[in-house]
């Protein structure tokens, strides 16, 4: 593919970091007649992004909400249906919204079931329900390519001390999307690990991580300029999407390319 075609692009966690970079980069790769649905909790930042996209001629709707609330997946799907037009040829869902969880504590301190459930609700359940809702709203039909992306992590594959929530959530998501890939061979499913990104999440990671050796690794990475710029990782992801050769369900890391 040279472009992503006339596309409906739904991006969660679009207000900053990787999600924002994805929105901007995808906007350059879609054809006229495309529409974006930007989801995040921060209305102001979303609306700024919406304006920027409009200036490049791309229509975007903002859905300002907390994805872990019961009615949220449905609200996103409803907006997506509103902006969809039958001459669109591509639906792309980017499950990017995520949180680090409290990395200042070790796993044995998580005695509160409610805290863990709250984390999983946002980082695992909401991605499942939103994806399910989008697939129901845009069922398989000829002429419509459907693509679901899970923003994954090395943490989906490797355990890291003081990161029990994040690692468990990412491992859960990778598996969730692998199951989806097995179930729907006509769907394109990508578990994309973007690399250690230069984002606000990394600031928290390198300052709060309880495990001292991991904390040092993270801050050294920052100090040595080894963090990956969102735009760079985004470019790699777009390359994957345009070439469209990846095996559905595979976990692909920024550094693999």
């Amino acid at each position, binding site marked *: 593919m040279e472009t992503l075609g006339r596309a409906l692009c739904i991006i969660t966690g679009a207000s900053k970091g990787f999600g924002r970079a994805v929105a901007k980069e995808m906007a350059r790769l879609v054809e006229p007649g495309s529409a974006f649905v930007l989801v995040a909790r921060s209305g102001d930042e979303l609306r700024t992004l919406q304006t920027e996209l409009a200036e490049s001629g791309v229509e975007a709707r903002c859905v300002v909400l907390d994805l*872990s*609330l*019961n009615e*949220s*997946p*449905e609200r996103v799907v409803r907006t997506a249906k509103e902006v969809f037009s039958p001459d669109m040829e591509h639906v792309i869902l980017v499950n990017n919204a995520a949180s680090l969880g409290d990395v200042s504590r*070790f*796993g*044995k*301190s*998580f*005695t*509160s*079931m*409610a805290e*863990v*459930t709250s984390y*999983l*609700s946002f980082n*695992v*359940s*909401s991605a*499942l*329900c939103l*994806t*399910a*809702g989008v*697939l*129901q709203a845009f069922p398989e039909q000829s002429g419509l390519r459907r693509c679901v992306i899970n923003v994954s992590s090395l943490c*989906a594959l490797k*355990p*890291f*001390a*003081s*990161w*029990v929530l994040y*690692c*468990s*959530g*990412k*491992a*859960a*998501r*990778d*598996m*969730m999307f*692998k*199951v*989806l*890939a*097995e*179930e*729907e061979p006509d769907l394109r499913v990508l578990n994309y690990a973007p690399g250690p990104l230069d984002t606000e999440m990394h600031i928290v990671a390198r300052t709060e991580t309880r*495990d001292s050796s991991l904390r040092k690794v993270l801050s050294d990475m920052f100090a040595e300029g080894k963090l990956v710029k969102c735009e760079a990782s985004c470019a790699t992801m777009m390359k994957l999407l345009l070439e469209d050769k990846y095996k559905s*369900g595979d976990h692909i890391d920024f550094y693999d390319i």
Partner: protein
Amino acid sequence: MSGVLHASGSTLGRCMCIITGASKGFGRALAHLVLHYLKPGSVLLLVARSRPLLQQLKEDLLQSLKDMEEMTIFCTVADLSTKEGIEDTVAMARQQSLKEIDHVLLINNAASLGDISPFENFIELERVNSYLAFNVSSVLALTAGVLQAFPPRAGLQWSVVNCSSMFAVQAWPSWVLYCTAKAARDMMFRVLAVENPNVKVLSYAPGPMDTEMQEDIRRLTGIQCHLHPCRDSAAKLMRLLLDNAFVTGCHVDFFDL
């Protein structure tokens, strides 16, 4: 008894042994088997929701103890999908923390199948959260609680078992809830293993056994496969625990042995 049981002489020591989901299936088989490897002064804490089934199990176990030294067997009737259930179980365990114990063995066996249903059907956040709360959150909360009640230290043997599944590593169509939860658990326990060098962590996939859960699977999916008696799988797990040669954090399957 199965022929794979360990040579005599090897025991679990004076052990605080906690088994969740003890009332039937694999948990029940483990309770029966473990008894033979507990030295006098050990405590066996059985956790499940059904008071009558637990009571019956306790009576059966006491019967088979007739010729052996006094062993303490407690039952905690607890719904581990609730805060109270976890707290009651931890409190019950904590009551034993002043005993002279040289081994803490926590077997996280309680689990549920969940809906076996296409991915697309999971649009309701509450349903997914409820499943993950019991199958993932409660396991972390309980393990954390018991780790706090019996702080790991040199000289105290600590073993925690995660009853895993081949579905923790293999994606299967229509099994998104179960696969996702098992994958999350495996990773959760890998993190705990990294964080706690004084704790041996084992994710044991018991293989398809002759349990009510398998009956449900057969009913819901029509899939029939050769089922192994619970006690055979329990015996393999026991051997792993007695040999104690497994690499902490690893995933071992019934069919690997």
